[in-house]
């Protein structure tokens, strides 16, 4: 399960702690949204960085009070056909202004990565796709009709910008 960020494969230093499981004494952890909202004070008081993992039904707005204190948001795609994570990502980036790492985890496949990137993800824990594949997938298109969270200028407006 390669973890790819900013055009390179990186080591995963984070551990996801299921709800109800014991917290490790050290190391960076992500927890489910419900765990974060319930135990916010204790979790944020830890020495190590804290992150959160969103399930498809989670409302990103619930993260608003924590956004400047968490270092990683993982968005889970239990099945690649469940596209709610794309809306969660767009909301986090464009509406709520989250600027930290936004990582796609779960059933993350090569051919979804460009959509993820456009929706605001900057890290991908892929099922099989290696670095070369991911980089290729990200370069398959050179123009995009609509604005999104990746900062590309839309074709609608590129047509009329004076370059």
């Amino acid at each position, binding site marked *: 399960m390669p973890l790819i960020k900013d055009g390179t494969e990186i080591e995963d230093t984070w551990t996801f702690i299921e709800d109800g499981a014991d917290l490790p004494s050290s190391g960076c952890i992500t927890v489910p949204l419900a765990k974060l909202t319930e135990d916010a004070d204790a979790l944020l008081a830890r020495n190590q960085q804290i992150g959160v993992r969103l399930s498809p039904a989670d409302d990103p707005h619930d993260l608003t009070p924590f956004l400047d204190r968490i270092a990683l948001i993982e968005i889970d795609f239990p099945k*690649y056909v469940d596209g709610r994570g794309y809306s969660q990502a767009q909301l986090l980036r464009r509406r709520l202004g989250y600027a930290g790492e936004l990582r796609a985890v779960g059933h993350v496949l090569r051919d979804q990565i460009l959509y993820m990137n456009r929706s605001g993800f900057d890290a991908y824990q892929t099922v099989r796709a290696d670095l070369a594949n991911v980089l290729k997938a990200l370069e*398959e298109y050179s123009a995009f*009709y609509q604005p999104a969270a990746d900062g590309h200028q839309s074709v609608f407006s590129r047509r009329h910008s004076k370059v």
Partner: protein
Amino acid sequence: MYRYDEFDAQIVKERVDQFRGQVERRLSGEILEDEFKPLRLQNGVYLQLHAYMLRVAIPYGQLNAARMRKLAKIARDYDRGYGHMTTRQNIQYNWVALKDTPDVLEELAEVEMHAIQTSGNCIRNVTSDHFAGATQDEIMDPRPWCEIIRQWSTFHPEFAFLPRKFKIAVTAAEHDRAAIRVHDIGLHMRERDGVVGFEVHVGGGQGRTPIIAAMVNEFVPETEILDYLEAIMRVYNRFGRRDNKYKARIKILVTETGPEEFTRLVEEEYAAQQTSEKIALPQVEIDRINAYFAPPAFEDKSATSDAFERAKTADPAFANWAKINLHPHKVPGYTSVTTSLKPIGGLAGDATDSQMMVMAHLAERYGFDDIRVTHAQNVVLPHIALDDLYEVYRELAAAGLATANESLITDMIVCPGLDYCNLANARSIPVGQEIQKVFEDPAYEQDIGKLHINISGCINACGHHHVGHIGILGVDRKGEEYYQISLGGRADEKAAVGQIIGKALRHEEVPGAVKTIVDTYRDLRTSADEKFIDAVERVGVEPFQEAIYATD
């Protein structure tokens, strides 16, 4: 007609390359069929009973001669010499080999066509009035906004994996020929105090749960419509059901949430959009796209044509066809011609490669290079001078394209049914053909007047049976084909779901039952001017039920 600029061309080229890579990875076994499925589906490639099917997008049904010739060539080179026009104004090829699909897409790109998002759980081809830009009853041409919506929805990163497929239709005419109230989103263009905008209907649909759309907003100005659509799509993407495929369409979300609450959610999401999130479509871009749809260079003509009148007198068959298959044009001396793809005993919506070549030639020679596919599976030449009509007719007739039945009982919408489709429970095509035989006498058919029969081979309702004036649904009863009949459905501005009239009939009983229904109508109509659908609305279904089931 819209023409690609360098961005459109580049995006479509990149799609061809991307899909070629995906097919190669599938054929080499690098990706599994399960993972390939959503990729091929977002490119219109379905696995059907006998082979892969390729559905090519015809945005809002718009073609020209070059595109039609390319469709003919693809039919000839990669299929068995024909293509099938669909109820969403697209074309399907039933016999394309998977390995050939990238080459087909490359050929399509040469004429600015593609198969992007013609299937899959994404925003599909935007459909519209097939008489757009030609008809007298529209307040403006809806095609520029169809094109803008096409571009906005193409590869939209947030809405590629929706709970279910998503269909948008746009009309600008009082009489709705685009069936907007049975679409996921139906847009009716309006003008208010000099501002162009849209009446927004959401949550219509057919399938196993037919629902007429709810109006969520009376007027969204054109400069805000894309942002408003984003709000609707986001609410659907986040809250639409994903636990059950049959409850995943937006109509179920609207119904279960309630139209008022759904509207509130949309308005809340829309109000929360920040300036930085807005699409901010530049006015110059709206103007640029509008300019492509400027009317062609019509000549100043009188409203009547001596040549047309003389030809009608000389050729009764022509006069008869002209009575049925023409639609009034906004410019004097011109008309819109419906080229029927419903010959008696034919395959509804099928056109051969040579027929496509004929239609291309006529459009180029007489029709300002404009061709439309209709949602009733016919083809329209929208701008033909009355002076040229007889020549056009003769060439159509020679090609078997001049059946005089537009909107009559033999002009049926028929899904491919069990003959082609792996979802179907029963055959549709033979049922349609047998009914056509009953009504093949033109005098009888014309006496009946406008009457839409829609036939689906299963509950997925691709043949739009819920909104047929007479709807016929194929069902499987222990391996035997039965057909359920409904009356009173309609897809226009008075959209309604038909009412089932009784127990399903055996295949061989269907043509006779339809004849009984029709003759019952002829007996009870107030005059020849009272259309079938109006009579059903007036008297209800009981007289028809009685006529069919009374002897049981």
